[in-house]
């Protein structure tokens, strides 16, 4: 069986031991797929929730989109807990789980560190829900997206997704070469795309009435700042961790697939849920899917450029990492020129006297700083993921 041959030899493995290791890898891969689907459920649920807030308004805690989001969070938490317990049991029985493929946690559990991160992230996101409800009772239903407990909720899930990425990366890291490794790498890139989509949801604030940030008399546009930081985190991490040209494109295509799912699901879910509950639309209800602006098409162009550069640079024996870092940051800044949904929305609805070109220029210095910070973070994340084994 190909999978068995792909297992990286660590010490002397007996045939039965190899069987267990293979079974363990398969279990974790299946677990990672379920966790990835749970995270995607949360992300699509969040897109629905943002539409719900804008079009109908939040009238209680357990609205249909909130139930979908909570379902995703619950699945993330419960599946990671189940996998941790399963691995701990296998470790106690000596059945393929040991220090080479898992870590000891709290002196009780023995499991991959990624699963613990996923569990903690899900727990924090679940904890954020009642806090968010409380915050809404004080500040109203139209609290901005970047409010304390919206951040806690979203970043709790992003933390859980980071854990899934570590889980997959550790599995891929223990396999030397072959089809199984390629399959795990594709799984990794797909999960990276879902994670990127979750982070990108925050771009919605850039096309809302809070689309400008003010520092005294100096105003900047929020959208390009965040976009320039996010693009390298997703696309550079893809090529640095997998070391394959095409990795950034696979990640970008996943983002666009999530965008398409949102575009199909959100209007359908809105129509049916609003009709089923007998609710009425707010006068300000937008006739389009709000979160489409958050997952811009230009990410594909940026990914293709990064992949082409990586293909050209990877033969170099030294200096490829800093060169790609600089190029990646520049590409991220370039994407803020291609993707400017804020330039169509902000002057039309919220800032009537705004000159988009002048605003983009005013934001450019901070956009460059954001792209550099995003690239730095991508380096740190990639280093950890590339070295993950437990």
């Amino acid at each position, binding site marked *: 069986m190909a999978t068995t041959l792909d297992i990286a030899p660590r010490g002397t493995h007996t045939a039965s031991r190899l069987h267990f290791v293979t079974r363990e890898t398969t279990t974790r891969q299946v677990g990672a797929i379920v966790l990835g689907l749970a995270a995607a459920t949360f992300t699509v649920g969040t897109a629905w929730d943002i539409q719900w807030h804008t079009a109908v308004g939040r009238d209680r805690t357990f609205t249909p989109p909130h139930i979908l989001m909570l379902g995703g969070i619950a699945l993330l938490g419960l599946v990671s807990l189940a996998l941790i317990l399963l691995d701990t049991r296998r470790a106690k029985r000596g059945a393929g789980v040991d220090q080479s493929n898992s870590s000891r946690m709290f002196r009780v559990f023995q499991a991959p560190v990624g699963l613990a991160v996923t569990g903690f992230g899900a727990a924090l996101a679940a904890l954020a829900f009642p806090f968010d409800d409380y915050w809404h009772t004080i500040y109203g239903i139209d609290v901005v997206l970047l409010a304390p407990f919206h951040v806690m909720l979203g970043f709790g899930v992003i933390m859980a997704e980071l854990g899934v990425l570590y889980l997959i990366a550790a599995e891929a890291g223990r396999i030397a070469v072959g089809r199984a490794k390629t399959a795990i790498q594709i799984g990794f890139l797909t999960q990276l795309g879902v994670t990127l989509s979750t982070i990108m949801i925050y771009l919605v604030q850039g096309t809302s009435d809070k689309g400008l940030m003010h520092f005294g008399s100096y105003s900047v546009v929020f959208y390009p700042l965040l976009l320039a930081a996010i693009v390298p985190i997703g696309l550079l991490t893809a090529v640095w961790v997998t070391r394959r040209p095409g990795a950034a494109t696979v990640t970008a295509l996943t983002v666009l697939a999530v965008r398409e799912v949102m575009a199909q699901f959100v209007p359908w879910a809105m129509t049916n849920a609003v009709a089923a509950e007998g609710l009425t639309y707010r006068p300000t209800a937008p006739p389009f899917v709000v979160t489409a602006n958050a997952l811009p098409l230009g990410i594909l162009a940026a990914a293709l450029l990064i992949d082409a550069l990586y293909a050209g640079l990877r033969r170099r024996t030294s200096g490829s990492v800093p060169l790609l870092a600089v190029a990646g940051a520049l590409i991220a800044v370039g994407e803020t020129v291609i993707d400017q949904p804020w330039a169509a929305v902000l002057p039309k609805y919220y800032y009537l006297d705004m000159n988009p070109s002048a605003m983009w220029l005013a934001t450019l210095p901070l956009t460059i700083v954001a792209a550099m910070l995003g690239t730095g973070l991508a380096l*740190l994340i990639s*280093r*950890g993921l*590339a070295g993950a084994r437990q």
Partner: protein
Amino acid sequence: MKALRSLTVCGMLTVAWLMTAGGVSAHSGAPVRSFDVQVGPYPVTVNYWNEPHAGQPLRFTIVPRGSGPVTLHYQAEAVPGTTVDAVPVRAQMGADPDNHYGVAGEVNLPVTGQWLLNIDATGTHGPGSGDAPILAASPVVMPEWMGWLIGLLPVWAMLGFIVAQARRAGRNILSAQPMGV
């Protein structure tokens, strides 16, 4: 086995609580607030059975007053005041077990501030509409800095984890190894 049994009992109790939590429950004792409201041609008394608090449902009853025309059907919703950032919330209504002609209801007040309980009634004298005031009390207000302190927990935790893992992996991991993850 014992643990499993306890877990099952806890689960059943939770399900039972969730099933009853959303329904319109019977009331006892005296109402905490009462308002005489003219709903079109129908004089009614609106009773609140708990103090209105933001984030909690308000239980109320609507009882016809005097010997006026008979009311057949009620609908109610909580309408936010002009300074309250919220949308109207429809009330759940059911028969009032204590008054044959009255109705009992429950409405969620998601945001602090002034609301109106808007009542629509239809009866022998046609349709009518009227309002009863609600002041939804605020919970204890958490300072915004504390909100951010708690809200940013996953961000700090994640950054700490990323830095720790990067240190553990070593500086040359991205360029030194021929094969990636």
